[in-house]
């Protein structure tokens, strides 16, 4: 095998492959033009829907030109004449009944039902998009019909009742948009949604057929309404509430987790092979309940020597980035900017940061997982970070802790203080024990050069976590071996309900002992550290939130009026 020339005498250089092209498997650079492991996919029907929407706009513009208007009307009337030839008197009443499917009442029931369900299941993004798109469809339909001012079909007998100008058919657009809302905000992707789409298509198709049979609409009125009421909303739902990021699901538990089967599974295997040279033989979700900020998974890999190694991975996507933003945003409003609450700008930055922190903490000698880097699944949208898997460990607190384990837990905080790092999420599920060793995991929230307040909070949370599996007196006495009494006093002066992670707070509540007051009694008295920080920015954000709530209320009122929901 050839070797790269050594930079210094005595060195042997690095082995390189003699082949010009990249190896078919194993670590390799993705050449320009090659798709990423999981390319962002646009469904073919979306392309058609966009084309239909664009064509409809062009059609409306064309209808302002007299020859086009005349030609289209002549063609429409010819089609309607053909349909009226098929009229059969006994069928007329049935068609009139079918045309009531799109009545105001039916549309209102569907729309309010969808809104109510979205509120119940707290799917707010879908709700906002649904509001917006229903409003846009209602306004565009009303606006275009006013501008075009198209008459109802002429030269044929109209059997049913009608309301307003005919282009586009507003009842068809209204029924289509509410059904699109039902299908894309309430029905989970997959078999049920496919059935839902076919059901909606059948209902809308029957409704359109009835309206054409009764000659209350021109054929082009119906087609334009379908483009506006179905093609546009479906495209918007797919763009703004993609199922990968905002899945429609009714499963209990955290919703932040991504599906690890199908195309994503193949993409993960491919990415780990090409980017990290890891041959994955098995992927399984792991510890989903303990993580809301990523999708944790366990990877079984085999080395080129045939050994099997288990690794831990965390899959990050846009949904996790958005969760992080909301979390930090709410904290900024509730408590002010206590520390660095700036959200990450991209998924790549988020995963780069965690990888950096893992390496930093490893270099500092802290008992954190060994980093193995991260891979790109979909550029700027999905990344997987890989690290050591602590096999055979148990969560701290599953057994009573020894003095050694308590010391090692406290030593982690001491070392982080020395290095200038705060973990910011010290809780039982992030502290593992194995044979007297204590390990610290999930460093995604960690920060370098933290505020003194945050360092103090880390110590308080560690002591509370350790005390859950021992006693406040025992932990306090061990802590005095590594920390000054004033440090401990500061830690519990800075500690509040809000500074304690939810899991730890729950455990403390269930424990029954008043551990926090007990620590405060043990430590020297100290005035509480204020955690409410007021700044111009916080006031600005508060004002913006109030304005946003008012805007939302105005939207709701406009929606209710314009979409004819009352």
């Amino acid at each position, binding site marked *: 095998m050839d070797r790269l020339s050594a930079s210094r005498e005595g060195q042997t250089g690095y082995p390189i492959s003699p082949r010009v092209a990249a190896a078919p498997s194993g670590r390799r650079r993705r050449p320009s033009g090659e798709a990423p492991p999981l390319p962002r996919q646009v469904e073919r029907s979306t392309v058609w829907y966009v084309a239909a929407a664009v064509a409809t706009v062009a059609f409306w513009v064309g209808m302002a030109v007299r020859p086009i208007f005349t030609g289209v009307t002549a063609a429409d009337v010819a089609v309607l004449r053909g349909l009226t030839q098929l009229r059969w008197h006994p069928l007329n009443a049935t068609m009139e009944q079918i045309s009531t499917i799109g009545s105001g009442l039916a549309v209102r029931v569907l729309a309010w039902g969808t809104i109510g369900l979205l509120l119940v299941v707290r799917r707010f993004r879908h709700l906002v998009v649904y509001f917006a798109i229903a409003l846009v469809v209602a306004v565009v339909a009303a606006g275009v019909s006013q501008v075009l*001012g198209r*008459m109802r079909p*002429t030269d*044929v007998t109209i059997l049913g009742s009608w309301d*307003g100008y005919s282009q586009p058919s507003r009842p068809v657009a209204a029924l289509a948009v509410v059904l699109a809302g039902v299908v894309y905000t309430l029905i989970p992707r997959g078999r049920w949604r496919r059935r839902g789409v076919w059901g909606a298509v059948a209902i809308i198709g029957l409704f359109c057929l009835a309206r054409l049979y009764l000659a209350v609409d021109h054929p082009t009125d119906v087609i334009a309404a379908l483009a506006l009421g179905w093609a546009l909303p479906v495209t918007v739902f797919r763009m703004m509430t993609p199922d990968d990021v905002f899945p429609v699901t009714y499963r209990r538990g955290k919703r932040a987790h991504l599906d690890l089967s199908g195309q994503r599974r193949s993409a993960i295997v491919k990415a780990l092979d090409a980017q990290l040279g890891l041959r994955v033989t098995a992927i399984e979700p792991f510890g989903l309940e303990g993580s809301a900020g990523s999708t944790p998974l366990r990877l079984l890999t085999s080395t080129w020597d045939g050994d099997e190694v288990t690794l831990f991975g965390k899959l990050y996507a846009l949904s996790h980035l958005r969760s992080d933003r909301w979390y930090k945003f709410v904290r900024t409003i509730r408590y002010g900017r206590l520390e660095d609450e700036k959200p990450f700008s*991209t998924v790549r930055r988020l995963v780069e940061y965690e990888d950096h922190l893992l390496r930093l903490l490893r270099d500092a000698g802290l008992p954190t997982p060994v980093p193995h880097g991260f891979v790109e699944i979909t550029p700027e949208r999905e990344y997987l970070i890989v690290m050591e898997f602590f096999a055979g460990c148990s969560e701290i607190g599953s057994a009573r802790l020894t003095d050694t384990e308590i010391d090692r837990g406290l030593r982690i905080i001491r070392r982080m203080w020395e290095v200038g790092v705060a973990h910011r999420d010290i809780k039982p599920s992030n502290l593992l024990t194995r044979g007297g060793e204590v390990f610290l995991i999930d460093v995604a929230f960690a920060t370098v050069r933290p505020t003194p307040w945050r360092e103090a909070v880390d110590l308080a949370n560690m002591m509370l976590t350790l005390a859950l599996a021992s006693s406040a007196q025992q932990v306090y006495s061990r802590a005095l071996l590594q920390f000054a009494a004033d440090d401990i006093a500061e830690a519990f002066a800075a500690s509040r309900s809000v500074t304690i992670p939810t899991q730890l707070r729950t455990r403390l509540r269930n424990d029954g002992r008043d551990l926090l007051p007990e620590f405060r009694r043990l430590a020297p008295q100290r005035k509480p550290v204020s955690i409410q920080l007021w700044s111009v920015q916080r006031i600005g954000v508060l004002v913006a939130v109030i304005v946003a709530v008012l805007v939302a209320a105005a939207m709701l009122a406009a929606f209710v009026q314009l979409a004819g929901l009352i």
Partner: protein
Amino acid sequence: MSSRRHRSLPVVTALATAFLMPACATVGPSAPACGTARRLAIVAQSVPTASYVPCLATLPEGWEVTRFDVESGHTRLSLAPDRGGGRDVDVELSAECDVAGATPEPARSPGARTYLRLTTISPRYAGTLFDVFAGGCVQYRFDFDRGPHIPLMEELRDAVALFPRRQLELDLRRTYGVELNVP
């Protein structure tokens, strides 16, 4: 920073559109003017028997159209004069109307008869003006402040005219090749 803006753009656009659209939608409804056969056709379709259809002749200064609803059976439009005391004039085309108790007035169009029924003359000037013609009728319900009611009644008469259906049929056939009447 720019990429973040880029990503949130669709949601911001949707929200902004949703919020701003109502403002666009509140731009006054456009009732058909007398010369626009294409727009006037639907008014004629609403009452297929009516030999005349109401249309906007010249909207006097200070008046605006606040509503225009057309559906099978009737057409309604509302006009709001700025000096009318805050109450709109409601104009309705229907197949028939009850003119009992109304007083005949000089006809506003050949082939039509005009009636006036006042419900009060003081402190407000309120009532209904009727244009009755073959196969239809137009009612104008008004309720003006006393004082400016005389010029307002004149302006109302000028604002809404009656357009002959036969002329409309001719215009539509000639201009758009459309037959308004069912064969």
